[in-house]
């Protein structure tokens, strides 16, 4: 039996109010590729952050044993010093700098006072060759594609003399071909004795490269499956990943009649705003009826938000094809959110702090913002009416706050989400697109948000709910679209959808083309 390189023993990590990791154990043998799988929020990234010292020693319980000794990392530098290098899901490269500069960022060659550029570029070129890149290390990062940028990240890790390489979703932004090349590169490194941990949602990749698979669910290790022959059945992994009991976390929506089609898009194709050659929404056709809640499920980066925002007055990307119909009539929206709101479409963003709310303003100001004109005559705001409206929504949504004059920045996440919903409900849309409406809020607040969604449907509105939480999509939707790699890859009635067949649809689509 091979030598055990890394052992994480009984790791428990608690955030205020949440146990993110509960008694997690992980054993990685030297020279193997170990896959870590689990749903979004299961705790994979938290575990890797504990390992790399982002959460320093003392903020978690349990031990990290690496190469036979107990490690107490305080910073990333400490873990990197031991040869543990993590490559994060979001690429951390500076686009305006050259490949070589990026590779040695914070790890510069030469003396303290002076960077030795000749050594930098010579060494960088050497590592680039190892990952199969032919570009010179003097080329700017922004000039190479995402696939190659991912390889630069790996070269950067190699330059740090990595013994244990952790790759967090390395292929999430890569196409099929680049992904396969990357996986083969990993297998090549394994031949040379490198140990790797890969975190991924793509189970076909797991089955292809991993020697062992550890499943994490709700902050606990469920099982470690042996895959020495690379022939594991994906259903076997899925069962481990999603096999949780569903309690009554979702309010029932009863006898809501479903009416005519309210909004419909056909052959909707959107390109990336900065890299127009990249297609982010590919030939999507979908519709939503009155009184219906339609779920869009997909993993992060599948193109869900891009689809929603492009429907909302082309607020994202470049629309190159497609028609939009409302109540059967074709509508050509101008390139502005203003026009979308006029046509009674609302988009409730997933990023409530970044582009949803104005944290430095009061609940009142935020609530009225999207429909301020209705409170004004000749541009003069009726402040009494504005106050009444804010109060009305505070009561309706049970927002917990001493007053509607309170600054939104002082509210909890759940209450902020309610203010965001209040803003869009006050805009009186016919179609509401909710993007991750329950992200980052606690279970109680989630329940209340679900109730609001049900009320909206009962009032004859059309709701499109984007979510990466499968149980939520299953429980709340009448109909579910499944999105993967910029396309809609499946559509099913909620009655026939299960966690297993949704996951299977995604996996099939990933392999199919």
């Amino acid at each position, binding site marked *: 039996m091979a030598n055990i390189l890394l052992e994480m023993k009984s790791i428990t990590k608690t955030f205020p109010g949440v146990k993110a990791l509960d008694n997690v154990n992980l054993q990685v043998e030297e020279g193997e590729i170990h896959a870590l799988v689990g749903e979004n929020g299961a705790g994979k990234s938290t575990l890797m952050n504990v390992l790399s010292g982002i959460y320093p020693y003392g903020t978690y319980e349990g031990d990290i044993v690496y190469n036979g000794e107990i490690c107490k990392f305080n910073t990333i530098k400490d873990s990197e010093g031991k040869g543990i290098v993590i490559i994060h899901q979001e690429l951390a490269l500076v686009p305006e700098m050259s490949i070589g500069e990026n590779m040695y960022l914070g790890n510069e060659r030469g003396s303290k006072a002076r960077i030795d550029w000749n050594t930098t570029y010579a060494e960088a070129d050497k590592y680039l060759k190892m990952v199969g890149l032919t570009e010179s290390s003097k080329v700017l990062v922004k000039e190479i594609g995402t696939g190659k940028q991912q390889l630069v990240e790996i070269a950067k890790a190699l330059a740090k003399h990595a013994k244990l390489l952790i790759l967090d979703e390395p292929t999430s932004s890569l196409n099929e071909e680049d992904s396969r090349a990357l996986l083969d590169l990993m297998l090549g490194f394994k031949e040379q004795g490198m140990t790797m941990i890969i975190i991924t949602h793509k189970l076909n990749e797991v089955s292809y490269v991993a020697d062992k698979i550890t499943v994490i669910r709700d902050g606990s290790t469920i099982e470690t499956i042996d895959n020495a022959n690379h022939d594991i059945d994906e259903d076997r992994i899925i069962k481990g990943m999603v096999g949780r009991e569903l309690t009554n976390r979702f309010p029932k929506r009863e006898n809501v009649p479903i009416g005519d089609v309210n909004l419909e898009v056909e052959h909707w194709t959107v390109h990336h705003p900065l890299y127009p050659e990249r297609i982010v929404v590919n030939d999507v056709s979908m519709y939503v009826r009155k009184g219906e809640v339609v779920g869009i499920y997909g993993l992060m980066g599948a193109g869900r938000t891009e689809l929603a925002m492009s429907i909302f007055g082309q607020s994202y990307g470049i629309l190159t094809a497609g028609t939009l119909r409302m109540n059967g009539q074709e509508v050509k929206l101008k390139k502005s*959110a203003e026009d979308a*709101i006029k046509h009674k479409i609302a988009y409730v*963003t997933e990023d409530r702090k970044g582009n*949803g709310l104005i*944290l430095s303003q009061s609940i009142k100001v935020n609530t009225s*913002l999207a429909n301020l004109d209705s409170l004004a005559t000749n541009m*003069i705001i009726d*402040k009494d009416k504005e106050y009444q409206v804010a109060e009305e929504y505070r009561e309706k949504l049970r927002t917990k706050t001493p007053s509607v004059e309170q600054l939104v920045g002082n509210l909890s996440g759940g209450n902020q989400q309610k203010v965001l919903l209040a803003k869009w409900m006050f805009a009186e849309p016919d179609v509401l697109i909710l993007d991750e409406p329950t992200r980052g809020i606690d279970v109680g607040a989630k329940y209340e948000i679900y109730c609001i969604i049900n009320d909206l449907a009962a009032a004859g509105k059309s709701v499109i709910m984007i979510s990466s939480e499968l149980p939520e999509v299953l429980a709340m939707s009448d109909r579910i679209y499944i999105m993967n790699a910029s396309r809609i890859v499946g559509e099913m009635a909620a009655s026939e959808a299960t966690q297993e067949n949704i996951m299977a649809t995604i996996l099939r689509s990933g392999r199919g083309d």
Partner: protein
Amino acid sequence: MKKSASQILKDNTMLIVLVLVYLFFTWRTGGAMFSPFNFNELITQNAYVFILASGMLMCMLTGGNIDLACGSLVCFLGALGGYFMTIREMAPLPSILLMLLIGIVYGCVLGYLIAYINIPPWIATLAGYLAFRGLGTDILSSNSKTGSISVKKVESFLGIFAGKLFKTKIGHLNTVCMAVGIIAAIIVVLLNVIGRANKVKKGYEADSMMMMLGKSVLEAGIILLVAYKLAMAGGIPTVLVWVAIVVLFYNFITEKTTIGRHFYVVGGNREAARLSGVNTRRIMFIAYLNMAIVTVITTWVVLGRVQAANSTAGTNFEMDAISACVVGGVSAYGGSGRIIGMVIGATLIGVINLGMSLMNIDANYQKVVKGVVLLGAVAFDILSKKRAK
């Protein structure tokens, strides 16, 4: 929810500082600061700050954006005004309208560059800062041997921008001025009473009776005091009318209108504002077009006061306007700030300037004091916000 005494103090810190600084200078100057003449000086000397800072406030609201060009633009437009009225002997009305037209054209170009071409405001206006000073100086030097064009003879122009309404002799009470003061004081008190009564009737948060009365007495007192002093100094300066119109107009825009609200939300979170249907580009465009118009009004007032166009006119005006806003609590990052705060900030700086001049403090050290006051005000603002969190 009643406000605690400490909260009231905190909300009005700058006002209290203003009063203390004023009392300090009154004491140090042996009461000279309190004379009718210096009351009048305080207003006429600083009129340009109030007007210019109203426009600057709108720019700053959109995200801490500033206009560096306005001082130089005052020089350029002033030179044109002198050229029109004195060299070409045009009538004042077409002259000032022509100045306004040129300002609007420039404002549209500037607004377009900033809002639709995405040129950072400080760079776009840095160009104007350099160019307008050069153009203005060239107009002056090619039309006058002294490099200065006098408008002393254009009496109707001076009357509109630098005269007195119903002028009386200094030392005699000007009844019209006093009457206007009394009427203004009554209006302010009535507005307070009616405003509170409305809020109470509808069950909204309202100040307590005492609070409202205290506020009314204070506001009415200040108005009556200013009116009395001005009445003793010969009457209402016309420039005060211009200042009042501009300040009240922007107060109305920022406090009551949808477009004013849009300035705040664009500065608070531009992306959120855009996704809520606010035309953020149009707001940026309006901010800079508006700034140019405000600069034109400033030019009229300054030309009237100095009675001549000089190549040094408007020097550091942009900094004075920014300082007034910042001292008055306008966020350097945008999204918050009120006209009333700016008025207090501008007055505070004006009082410090006048007081130091009366005390014959060296001009170089006056600059040092002003710099320290500005830095102190911003540090105070940031620290108090931090503590609030």
